[in-house]
């Protein structure tokens, strides 16, 4: 086998694929063939690099050239210049400085504070090639679990690691496994919850796309630990790439005897089936998920009985989230003690966050638990986009709350987030700046939960609707003073009386923004004013006489012809016709348009 001189890693995550990375990959291969260096260059399509803001990403080794915003047309130049002549394509580099000491991936701020366990193979290996996973110590945890460890040993190792569920509630993983192991029924199931539904969160998708074997290995280890021989991966049909890569991975592991009967010649057998969900948010709730797997309508059922003893088809079942499972092979391979050294006191290991919103570098980041919000937002995320002022971060999606400027130095772990009235959730982190209205944000999340409520229990179905109507009224300037106490009353009732996590946590964004941004609610209700200038019913656009030079740009741009005025004369906005789209505000070069 001839050695390769160059390795080209092309990001094949969903984000980069939607920006034509597939075509880049094909063009690179084509160009390589054309210049005759096919034998000397290995081109690999990997999982997500996480730095989605800069995608599509192409990395060339061994020079460690980190090319960003690559287009299919750039393939020719990368091959002809870099691969053939050994000259980096400077214009595509992330760090374009000419110095010899140019930034390699280890020096990019975005990657500096990250520590990758879950995303260890994403952006490194070809997810469709099992050999590359094996080369990165893949299936070593399984080896150990099958041939060297008893069920008790595996659970003990998990206990030592301190791993807690990454799907939201943060329940200790070893306890879940131990309950199921202790159940008397001989038939048990392992269920992987890949029904990722929080707006803005996509770490599970990226893990499945970039490293599907890690989930298969983890589920098999779980099977050995609790005495199950069959597993289900419940994944939403909206993740076609992840599903496809999982199918390829399952086929490969079956062929190689890592899945199926008598794994690696032992007497342990385990197999996995994929079940597709139709994308209902409530199906991420474990009892609703189980019903959906069974072919029933996806609705939650009361707990207890818990799935650990009465799960899929009434059998004891372990249900773990994708990110939780991705940690397992590493814990078994390197030991629970090693894992427990990472992270903070009550939260061990790392957490993947999907950083989105008004942030300069949006993307997937994995940091040790206990990293402060400031480090995540400013050091890794590069701060707020367009030089605006930081206002708050929303964590935990529609079940979470906001964290304000005053709490930027809080270490992010289960305990501290709870103290602030938010939750870890699945790890979505939506950054907001001064232009975001908190009432509007609360309304958005609540609207999501109202849409996604299954309607089975009254507190969620009626309470959610009532809360939404109140918020809608407030954003229209029709709020009443006692609305605030009503929000609290209905919200607390929902938290206590709802059947499942969806309804119990749906009021969280409202209560949390009400707590931290009470003034903003009052401004809407009392003064009929939206401080952020977001709520359309409460704002109007006007033109300043001393600044308007009469260029007519706004009048031409206005979609409803609401602006009139002679050229070189001051223009005026017809308030009745104005639809408050804000076009005139953003187009004016003289800051003559203002919001009131």
């Amino acid at each position, binding site marked *: 086998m001839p050695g390769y*001189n160059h390795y080209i890693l092309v990001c094949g995550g969903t984000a980069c694929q939607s920006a034509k990375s597939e075509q880049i990959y094909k063009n690179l291969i084509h160009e390589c063939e054309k210049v005759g260096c096919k034998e000397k260059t290995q081109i690999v399509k990997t999982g997500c690099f996480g730095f989605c803001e800069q995608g599509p990403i192409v990395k060339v080794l061994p020079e460690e050239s980190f090319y960003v915003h690559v287009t299919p047309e750039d393939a020719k130049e990368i091959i002809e210049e870099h691969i053939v*002549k050994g000259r980096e394509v400077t214009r595509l580099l992330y760090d374009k400085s000419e110095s010899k000491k140019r930034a390699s991936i280890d020096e990019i701020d975005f990657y500096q504070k990250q520590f990758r366990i879950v995303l260890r193979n994403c952006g490194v290996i070809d997810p469709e090639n099992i050999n590359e996973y094996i080369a990165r110590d893949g299936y070593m945890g399984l080896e150990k679990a099958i041939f060297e460890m008893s069920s008790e040993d595996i659970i003990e190792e998990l206990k030592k690691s301190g791993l807690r569920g990454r799907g939201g509630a943060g329940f200790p993983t070893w306890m879940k496994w131990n309950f199921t192991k202790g159940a008397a029924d001989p038939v048990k199931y392992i269920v992987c919850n890949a029904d990722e539904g929080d707006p803005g969160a996509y770490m599970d998708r990226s893990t499945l796309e970039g490293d599907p074997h890690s989930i298969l290995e983890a589920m098999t280890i779980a099977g050995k630990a609790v005495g199950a021989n069959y597993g289900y991966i419940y994944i939403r049909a909206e993740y076609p790439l992840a599903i496809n890569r999982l199918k390829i991975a399952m086929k490969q592991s079956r062929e190689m*005897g890592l899945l199926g009967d008598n794994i*690696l010649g032992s007497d342990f057998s385990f197999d996995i089936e994929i079940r597709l969900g139709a994308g209902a948010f409530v199906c991420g709730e474990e009892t609703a998920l189980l019903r959906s797997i069974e072919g029933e309508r996806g609705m939650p059922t009361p707990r207890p009985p818990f799935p650990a003893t009465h799960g899929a088809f009434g059998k004891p079942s372990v249900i773990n989230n994708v990110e939780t499972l991705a940690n397992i092979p590493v814990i078994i391979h390197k030991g629970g003690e090693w894992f427990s050294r990472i992270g903070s006191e009550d939260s061990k290991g790392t957490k993947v966050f999907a950083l989105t919103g008004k942030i300069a570098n949006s993307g997937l980041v994995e940091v040790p638990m206990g990293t402060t919000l400031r480090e995540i937002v400013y050091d890794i995320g590069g701060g707020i986009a367009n030089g605006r002022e930081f206002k708050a971060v929303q964590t935990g999606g529609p079940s979470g709350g906001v964290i304000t400027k005053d709490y930027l130095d809080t270490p992010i772990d289960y305990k501290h987030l709870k103290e602030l009235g938010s939750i870890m959730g699945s790890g979505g982190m939506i950054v907001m700046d001064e232009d975001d209205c908190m009432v509007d944000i609360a309304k958005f999340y609540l609207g999501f939960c109202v849409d996604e409520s299954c309607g089975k229990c009254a507190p969620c179905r009626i309470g959610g609707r009532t809360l939404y109507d109140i918020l809608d009224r407030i954003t229209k300037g029709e709020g009443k003073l006692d609305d605030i106490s009503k929000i609290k009353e209905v919200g607390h009732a929902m938290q206590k009386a709802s059947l499942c996590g969806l309804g119990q946590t749906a009021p969280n964004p409202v209560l949390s923004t009400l707590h931290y941004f009470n003034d903003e609610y009052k401004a809407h209700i009392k003064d009929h004013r939206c401080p952020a200038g977001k709520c359309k019913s409460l704002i109007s656009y006007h033109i300043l006489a001393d600044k308007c030079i009469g260029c007519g740009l706004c009048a031409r741009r206005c979609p409803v012809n609401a602006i009139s005025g002679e050229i070189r004369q001051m223009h005026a906005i017809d308030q009745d016709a104005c639809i408050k789209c804000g076009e005139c505000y953003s187009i004016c070069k003289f800051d003559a348009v203002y919001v009131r």
Partner: protein
Amino acid sequence: MAKMTLEELRKLRDEEKKGLSRRNVENKDTQIIIGMGTCGIAAGAKETLDVFVQTLEECELSNVRVTQTGCMGLCYVEPTVEVIVPGMPDVIYGKVDAEVARKIVRKHIINKALINDHIYDKPSADIVGEGGAQ
């Protein structure tokens, strides 16, 4: 592929590790930089590069990074190769054909001895970075 036993899995992993470790750039303290200007390529730098990659593999050296660069300015002794080994002076070798390349790996990198009759220069200071002229 047929179903594997534990031993076969371990064997496969060892084999695959070698391939992937060449992609891995961590823990690589030694560098071989090959001048790949037009002059270098014309003088056979491509073959030199292949020999380096091949020899490193034969000697099972995993701490060496082979990269390419442009013309180093010593066009009269192409192909030129810069070798950086910790604890040894950085040197530029000239007229590195296949045989010299093998010698560099065996003598310079493994036995830590310079090959005096092929040394033509030492790398110039980095004038862009700190410490150099502004």
